[in-house]
């Protein structure tokens, strides 16, 4: 059995150029230290799929030129405003944007989790989100008369990447209530996780912790990255670094400022 706990750079090896990479929403544990490492490595042509939204992570990867396409329901810095590099890149048309809606992304990951080719979803009909998604289809609900319903094709990413409070040496990862991370891992061919710390013992053998654990069976590699979601929050562990995000929003408003941010916080600080 290969060792599941690896260095950050080793753990990120499965995320190659052109990879379909699933990333979680801001409030569940975003692997920001890993994201900076990927930018340092110069990863190219990522096809990001956000479950279901993104913030700094997508903005940083887009600004650094690592992104070929992005499927998401929204990208925003929340109270710090629009995501500046995302916004600029959409206006410039420098990557392929696939607009979605949150429950569609949840359902499409669940389809892959269940090994079915599609999942139905209510709503959407008459929305331009649907109109711009030729890969989504409308059928007539065969259990009813005249009842159109949308079918969404399964999303099965190459790799899922997220940050969590802890993992054990068997690769079991404690995710607590952030259960979309489990769906994401089930749907992805491989899952790479950064964690705050290694838990001694087996998470699955602890009756209470087991209920919030992603089994190591699904996990390709784990790397320790303390404060690895910074400057984004890790639920119940640390909050946003509001000062840093405000600084980012200000710098990233221009290409020059963004280059300066990358220099200071990504390239220079290897373990920011």
């Amino acid at each position: 059995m290969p060792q599941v706990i690896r260095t950050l750079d080793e753990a990120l090896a499965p995320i190659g150029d052109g990879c379909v990479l699933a990333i979680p929403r801001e409030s569940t544990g975003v692997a920001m230290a890993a994201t900076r490492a990927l930018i340092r490595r110069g990863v190219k042509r990522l096809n990001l799929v956000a479950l279901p939204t993104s913030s700094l992570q997508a903005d940083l990867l887009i600004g650094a030129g690592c992104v070929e396409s992005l499927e998401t329901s929204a990208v925003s810095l929340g109270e710090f405003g629009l995501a500046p590099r995302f916004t600029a890149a959409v206006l410039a048309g420098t990557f392929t944007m696939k607009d979605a809606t949150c429950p569609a992304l949840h359902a499409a990951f669940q389809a892959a989790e269940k090994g079915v080719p599609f999942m139905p979803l209510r709503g959407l009909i008459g929305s331009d989100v649907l109109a711009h998604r030729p890969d989504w289809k409308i059928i007539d609900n065969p259990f009813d008369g005249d009842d159109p319903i949308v079918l969404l094709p399964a999303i099965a990413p190459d790799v899922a990447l997220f940050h969590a409070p802890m993992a054990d040496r068997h690769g079991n990862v404690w995710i607590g209530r952030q259960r979309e991370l489990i769906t994401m891992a089930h749907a992805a061919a491989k899952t790479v996780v950064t964690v705050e710390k290694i838990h001694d013992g087996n998470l699955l053998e602890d009756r209470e912790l087991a209920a919030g654990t992603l089994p190591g069976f699904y996990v390709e590699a784990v790397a320790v990255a303390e404060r690895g979601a910074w400057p984004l929050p890790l639920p119940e562990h640390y909050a946003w670094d509001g000062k840093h995000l405000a600084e980012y929003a200000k710098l990233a408003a221009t290409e020059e400022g963004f280059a300066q941010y990358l220099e200071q916080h990504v390239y220079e600080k290897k373990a920011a």
Partner: protein
Amino acid sequence: MATTSPNQKEFRTEELLISVVADLIGDARHAAVGNASPIPAAASLLARARGNGRPYVSLLGSPKHTFWTDGGRELFDCAGQGRIDVFFLSGGEIDGEGNVNLVSVGDYDKPTARFPGSFGSAYLYFVVPKVILFRTEHSKRTLVPKVSFISAPGASADNVYRTGGPIALITNRCLFSFDPARRRFKLESVHPGHTLAEVIVNTGFEFDRPPDVPVTPAPPPETLRLLRETVAPELAEVYPQFAGKVFGTGR
């Protein structure tokens, strides 16, 4: 805790909006409020205080005020189960048919402005019975004749499964109700200090209105008291800055 005592003659604009929204919520089992929405949050908490614990209020930005244990999909599943009765939406643009645009302005493939994205609107607008549109900025830039991009449509064809949709649009100038059959807004009242002429000139879409447009009623004293004494300290847990500014909470 709020120490301000109720004042029957004076109230803030925010208090007026909160009171109006609470009336729109009415009797419901469950109101869910998105991130960064202090006025809808306060209105939901006010409705709960008046309803002796009903509606159940979920403040989505606050882990303490949400019960989800099934991941991010639970909000949408819960709505799909018919277990969310009230939700709030805003939009970069809103048009006279109740269509909401959270995506972009201009041609979608070559936009002139880009917003964050549709979030869950393209679903929740269909399955939450009472969606209250909330857009404080009331201008021809935000209330347009026709949105550039329909994140979620205000009304649907008869054969489309739809258990929900917009019931009203509240701005800093007035309150509109929405008639899904006519696919039109109707001006219900103009807030104190604002005028019908001002509403007309700042609204990009046509709307119905009664011969005499009422003034939005001031919050009754009991509402102001509940708001300041009961709701304000609850709100301050999630929106300390807003609660401090409007209610002086925590000062």
